């Protein structure tokens, strides 16, 4: 049994004292040699910054003064009393509450429609997938133009069906919703891909069995398909929510948080405080607050999701 010999030799190798050669051949040495380059980068740019920004959130730290005195919980107290933070939280939550279910519903509907062998189906699928290839910046620029209040084509379509002209991104009451629309469009392809993959994993026999038992298409969908899609739905809702809570690119491009802070979301305010005002301490406190929000929301989703999620086998 040569295989067992090899295992035995490998197990013995790490402990064997001896020459430089055996040390280099040891599993300890190889292990560290293999992981060091990758792990060093992750420690330097991932682990160290996590601790550092936690420390910074208890300091008064900005570019103006070289000293960074500890100020206890002052940054977190400022966070609790800052009216813009309260607005940013509200906008972030409203955005997330609209964007996540919206994307999931559209993605599910299109995936169900596209989960069949009909003519032009690859064209339809490609049309949805294409939204995955566009960067958030390109997407935002196109949508700013589509929703331009003076020359935008959306206002033109509105005029065709007799609706009044809108200010869209220039209006404090509409801007956030325009950003919801553009980001849903941008994420449609992703949601379709996830749901299509899950739909194709459903065994045909189950659906046929339901049909034989007399279930109509809607009942089959409600009772068979939807429960079998629940792992994909849970994944999508967690993934989309994490991304929604970190919304930044589209806001930076289209409104810069305006008009009148109407689209100031948490990460935009964090960026503004960190790299426009250079209040590193306060910005770190916002970052940790965002992290907390993400953890809480994710845990809730998994807790609630577990009750509705069916795993096969």
């Amino acid at each position, binding site marked *: 049994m040569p295989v067992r010999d090899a295992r035995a030799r490998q197990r013995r190798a790490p402990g064997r004292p001896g020459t430089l050669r055996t040390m280099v051949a040891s599993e300890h040495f190889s*292990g560290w040699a293999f992981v060091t380059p990758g*792990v060093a980068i992750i420690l330097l740019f991932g682990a160290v*910054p996590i601790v550092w920004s936690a420390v910074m959130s208890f300091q008064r730290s900005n570019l103006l003064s070289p000293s960074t005195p500890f100020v206890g919980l002052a940054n977190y107290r400022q966070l609790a009393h800052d009216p813009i933070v309260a607005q940013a939280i509200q906008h972030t939550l409203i955005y997330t509450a609209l964007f996540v279910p919206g994307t999931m519903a559209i993605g599910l509907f299109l995936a169900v429609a596209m989960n069949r062998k009909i003519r032009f189906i690859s064209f339809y699928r490609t049309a949805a997938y294409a939204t995955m290839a566009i960067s958030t910046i390109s997407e935002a620029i*196109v949508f700013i133009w589509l929703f331009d209040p003076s020359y935008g*084509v959306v206002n033109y379509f509105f005029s065709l069906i007799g609706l009044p002209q809108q200010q869209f991104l220039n209006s404090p009451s509409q801007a956030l919703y325009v950003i919801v629309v553009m980001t849903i469009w941008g994420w449609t392809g992703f949601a379709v891909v996830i749901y299509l993959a899950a739909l194709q994993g459903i065994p045909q026999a189950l659906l046929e069995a339901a049909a034989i038992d007399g279930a109509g298409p809607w009942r089959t969908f409600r009772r068979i398909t939807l429960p079998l899609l629940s792992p994909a739905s849970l994944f999508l809702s967690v993934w989309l929510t994490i991304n929604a809570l970190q919304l930044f690119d589209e806001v930076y491009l289209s409104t810069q948080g305006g008009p009148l802070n109407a689209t100031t979301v948490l*990460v935009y305010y964090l960026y503004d405080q960190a790299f426009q005002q250079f209040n590193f301490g306060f910005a770190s406190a916002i*970052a940790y607050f965002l992290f907390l929000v993400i953890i809480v929301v994710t845990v809730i989703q998994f807790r609630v999701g577990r009750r509705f999620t069916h795993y096969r086998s």
Partner: protein
Amino acid sequence: MTATSAPARGGIRPASHEGAPRAPRRRRRLPFSPWHLVLIPASLVLLFPFAWLLVTSVETPGEALRFPPVLTPHVLRFANYPDALATAPFVRFFVNSAVVAVTTVLCNLVLCSLAGYAFARFRFLGRTALFAVIMATLMVPFQVTMIPQFIITKWLGVHVLAAVGIDHIGALILPNAATAFGIFFLRQFFKTLPMEYEESARVDGASRLTVLIRIVLPLATPALATLAALTFLDSWNNFLWPLIAITSTDQMTLPLGLATFQGAHSTEWTLLMAGNVMSLVPMLAVFFLAQRYFVRSVAATGLAGT
């Protein structure tokens, strides 16, 4: 019209009608799947932003600023493209983006394979603790680490190597040259591979590195392709970190260059759209050529979670 002609066709060839016993209960049958009635408008909505982007990019500046909008331009003004190129160095942005994305992908494939393999197969002192630390960083959003990352990158540029410092594209590569996700993803994949090949190669005297390169990596091609596709997309579309780390035009990547261009020419729509088309086309082309890979990779992240 088409709907009413359907029964007639069914009447001509009743024998070929498969669902004959159930036919009486059915209403008039469309000669095509009714799902087209949903999918055609849906595709139009999904593709319209692309179409409008293209149309505007070949309009004259005067046509673009007209209401109602000119849906079909009278002359195609392709000069917008050279004009945009003369205003901002899009070729440079593209080259920077490509260099950053390709280098980041290659670094990730090498470093994450090495680390992922060691975590999957070797027993070494501190393995569990080290792996736990890496998994912890996986959960933390970038916004938490970006301020210290900025300070560290600045320090590295001043004291160690200018090429990886602030305002150099190296600063966009080094922090992402290995990712916790990549290490975790490949480790999980390596663990599913049968160990026998590796063991017999070791018995035959191959070094651990040789085993990884000659035996394990060829078996892991699908996982490596997935990691490459996801890393490429991430790097190509990244905006926040370049926005923080880069200020000089000649070091900008496409998203940052495009955003800066938009900031400076926010009302010159024809120019903006021409620039936007040029920054979109390379990625769209790669995407269509490798659509299967991208779609499978994105679906894999979803299925891995389920």
